[in-house]
């Protein structure tokens, strides 16, 4: 166990957190991702922009293994994860949030977090109730705190506002020891106040946790990232710092003229 961990560590020093090489994904005749190559460093915070249909969510699905790529290679901290099932990638510290709410609506906020924390643990099946000092319960409390959800502990998810559900998604992504989180449009449909809270939550994440965020709202995205990737028609169109991207005429052309929502 320790040998594996230390071997992984020496690798992480040299390798990128996330490395995509010529990744493509087609659905029948439709090429949703076309030869995408990108590198994200450990602890880096990256935004992915692009009009609807540019392939952003498909990119996430390829990285997490929900819909593996049809061509190309994906390395996670130096390790080739291209063919690994999603759970194996989760075990290696990769997390994601979903665009549409995939929460457990009949359960409370805390129980959702508890299940997420339990899912990444080694013991998932138990018919015995845990005590208060249970490590998983403590972990779920920390996740709840990080996602600014403390006062909603006992609230059923079905009673949560949309913004609170997005926060809960983020909280669940913090289960275990995440090294890289993929946020799929966390600010979609949020009010200005909720967006401010979201920015606070993202900025307060520990520094070693890198993330990639899909975001239409440039105001939100440019305040929480160091580097941007712009996608167009399933391919990488441009990369650069937030300033470069914001002032790039080509980006403005496709982005503002693209008729996205």
């Amino acid at each position: 166990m320790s040998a594996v961990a230390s071997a992984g560590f020496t690798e992480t020093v040299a390798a990128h957190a996330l490395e995509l090489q010529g990744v493509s994904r087609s659905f029948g005749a439709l090429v949703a991702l076309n030869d995408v190559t990108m590198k994200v460093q450990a602890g880096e915070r990256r935004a992915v922009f692009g009009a609807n249909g540019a392939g952003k969510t498909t990119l996430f699905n390829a990285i997490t293994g929900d819909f593996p790529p049809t061509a190309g290679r994906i390395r996670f901290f130096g390790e080739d994860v291209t063919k690994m099932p999603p759970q194996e990638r989760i075990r290696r510290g990769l997390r994601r949030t979903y665009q549409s709410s995939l929460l457990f609506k009949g359960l409370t906020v805390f129980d959702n977090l508890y299940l997420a924390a339990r899912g990444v643990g080694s013991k998932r099946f138990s018919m015995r109730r845990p005590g208060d000092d249970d490590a998983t319960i403590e972990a779920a409390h920390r996740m709840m705190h990080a996602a600014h959800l403390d006062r909603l502990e006992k609230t059923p998810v079905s009673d949560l506002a949309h913004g609170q559900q997005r926060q809960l998604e983020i909280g669940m992504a913090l289960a275990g020891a995440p090294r890289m989180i993929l946020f799929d449009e966390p600010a979609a449909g949020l009010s200005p106040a909720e967006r401010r809270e979201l920015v606070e939550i993202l900025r307060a994440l520990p520094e070693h946790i890198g993330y990639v965020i899909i975001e239409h709202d440039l105001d939100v995205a440019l305040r929480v990232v160091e580097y941007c990737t712009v996608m167009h028609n399933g391919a990488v169109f441009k990369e650069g710092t937030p300033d470069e991207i914001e002032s790039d005429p080509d980006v403005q052309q496709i982005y503002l003229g693209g008729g996205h929502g």
Partner: protein
Amino acid sequence: MASITDKTEDKKAAPVLPVWLRGVRWYHAVVAVLLVIYPLIATGFWTVQIGAQSLILGLIGLSLMLLAGYGGMVSLSQLTVAGLAGYLVAIFGNAEWPAWLMLVGAVSLATVAAVLIGWISARTSGIYTIMITLAISVAFYYLVLQNDPIFNSFNGFSGVRPPEVFGVDWRAPLPFFYLTLGVVGLCYLFVLYLSRTPFGLALQAVRDNPRRMASLGFNVTAHRVAAHGVAGVLAGIGGVLLVWQNGQISPGSVGIGPVIDILILTVLGGLAHPVGPFIGAVIFILMENFAIDLIDRERFNTVIGAVFLVIVLFSPDGVLGLWGKLKSWLARQSARNRVDQW
């Protein structure tokens, strides 16, 4: 709502309540006391035909509530599992097995059958689960109807009675009621406890979103099959009590009618909480016994159908849902009164 962190009181009021006692409230004690003194006041008919019968059918309904309410799996084979346990008790009894072996054998074989049914149906969902479990129930009905050497075909078995243990005649109304109450009470508490364990929580999450559970790293099929196993134990115990109460079992006991009755009484009471099936069973048994005072025996199905329609029309969550609506209505009224006084 059952939660992994449910506590009875504030931490200050009850600092060291054991984990298994959490969620117990004062009105649980009141109901328990009422149930204990009930047979002392009631006649034999009310004790057994109404009281014990409601508890037993409620227990079989509870096994369905566990599957459907927590697990999102509507199974029509719970009465079949109960019926199998009932048949086995009769068969092992005729073979003069010792009482403990007869009970353990009957309930565990019924549980094995339930696990098999779960294993077959766990990969389906919605209407397909209903169809598969219904097919299994119908198949079992024809099996016992046509099989003479083991199941004694259409005659079934009669004269089945509980064994005499500790010199008590468990067939007498009072002992039988208390036996039933004790066993059913333990099963009910067990389900309450289970709903707040990691397993119970995971089962409810599987109901809400199986794909997300799988992506969190949980084995969805294993949880579903395990739920069928637990529900099989409950249904099996219910089946043993049922055959003892009726004194006989025949293909008619496991036919399509009783199979549907369990579904009706469970939905009638409500799937949101383990108490639902018991409320549904009481209503069902009362109507079954007293509707004939108002109308012909043959019209019973019309009455139960009409009552079922009315309750489900007004409240898709059964009687439990009506109760929830009443509570929120009362809260609104008192809030309005307070506003009026201003």
